[in-house]
């Protein structure tokens, strides 16, 4: 009885570790960015004052749409297909993609956009 329980618990831990690793790979692979740096940048740029971003401290803004589940979303801002290249472009130059929308250009560099995108793709 106890053994079954232990085995189950271990399995659960292993599975959750796997799914977390899977999520990190989901972010890292297509973008070439670093998920941990991305998380830090999302905090430092204050994306969370406008967006709900699961896993990022104090990220509960309601000015823009929630980024919950963003990794499996088809489109970006209703204008672009959600590919890594398009996401880099949106994050660094939203005003170029959708002039006059409420998300300002924040000065995110190409390199930083990769890391940020890596984090966003972990959100399933």
């Amino acid at each position: 009885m106890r053994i079954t329980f232990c085995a189950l618990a271990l399995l659960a831990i292993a599975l959750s570790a796997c799914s977390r690793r899977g999520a990190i790979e989901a972010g890292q692979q297509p973008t070439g960015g670093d998920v941990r740096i991305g998380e830090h940048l999302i905090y430092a740029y204050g994306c969370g004052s406008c967006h709900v971003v699961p896993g990022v401290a104090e990220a509960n803004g309601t000015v823009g749409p929630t980024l919950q589940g963003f990794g499996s979303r088809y489109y970006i801002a209703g204008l672009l297909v959600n590919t890594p290249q398009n996401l880099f472009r949106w994050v660094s130059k939203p005003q170029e993609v959708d002039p006059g929308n409420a998300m300002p250009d924040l000065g995110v560099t190409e390199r930083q956009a990769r890391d940020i995108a890596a984090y966003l793709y972990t959100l399933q």
Partner: protein
Amino acid sequence: MNSTPIKTALIAIAAVIALQLVGGLLFMVSGTYNIAADEPHLKPVRWMLQAGRTRAIQMRSRGLHPPNLRDPSLLKRGLVLYRQNCQPCHGGPGTANEQIGRGIDPKPPPLLTASNKWDDSELFWIISHGLKLSGMPGFAPRLSETDLWGIVAFLRRVVLLSPAEYKRLTSAEDLGADDPLLNWPSNNDYGFAQLKAQGDAKRGLELLQSYGCISCHMVPGLAHQRSAGPPLTRFAERQYIAGSLVNVPSNAVAWITNPKQFKPQTLMPNLNVQPAEALHIAAYLYTSGSSDRLTALERNLQIAKESSTPKLN
């Protein structure tokens, strides 16, 4: 003597307190706590900074008498002052804050949503005195009382402006006081009355299903298939629709009936939803999330009719 156990207990308590003090002091001087402003505070520290703030502001702002916030010259003054003094840290619709406002922690929130939780006097107090242990400065020594009320008036008006309207206001060289954006729309209630009178949330839920909205959106209360567009969860709290329309009932209805009239390139299709149906859908979507923002907007609209915003609660 039976006071010995008490004595021992007291000594033990004193020792624990002393140890905690020494420990706390050691922690402070050891440099373990990260004071970098580009990392978040620990949760308990953040909590401590916030705790008691609301009560303190409520208490201290009692007895202030807001003037007539409807006055266009007051709004105009508020706009100019907002652009100079607040936008650098708080940004504005579609306008980023400047470098000075970026590295601060706690972060200056967008005032579009943050100002909903304060009444006029409370806002006046915050702007006058600032907030300790945060980067929010007090402006009272430098700005006159009229200036400060002007900013309050503008904070009430700006939540109803789209990014494009805000850009126009802040880039114009000289604004006439008769500019519609600097006046309160006296005969436009942004669809609130109609929503209340005719919106049927239950019917809305059925329509969300029958029109297939759930094939592209996560809708609260319904199983969803895939996510083409943003989740429609906590919709009442959302400040903008599709990033550019202020989220008020009339705009939600107009968007659902014909999204392309606002954003020709948008990937959300026109589904031929009738306005009456869109009203029901909006009624349902607005049941998701806290209604504070909508209540605050409705209260703001009272400014157009009355001399000042009615008190909260």
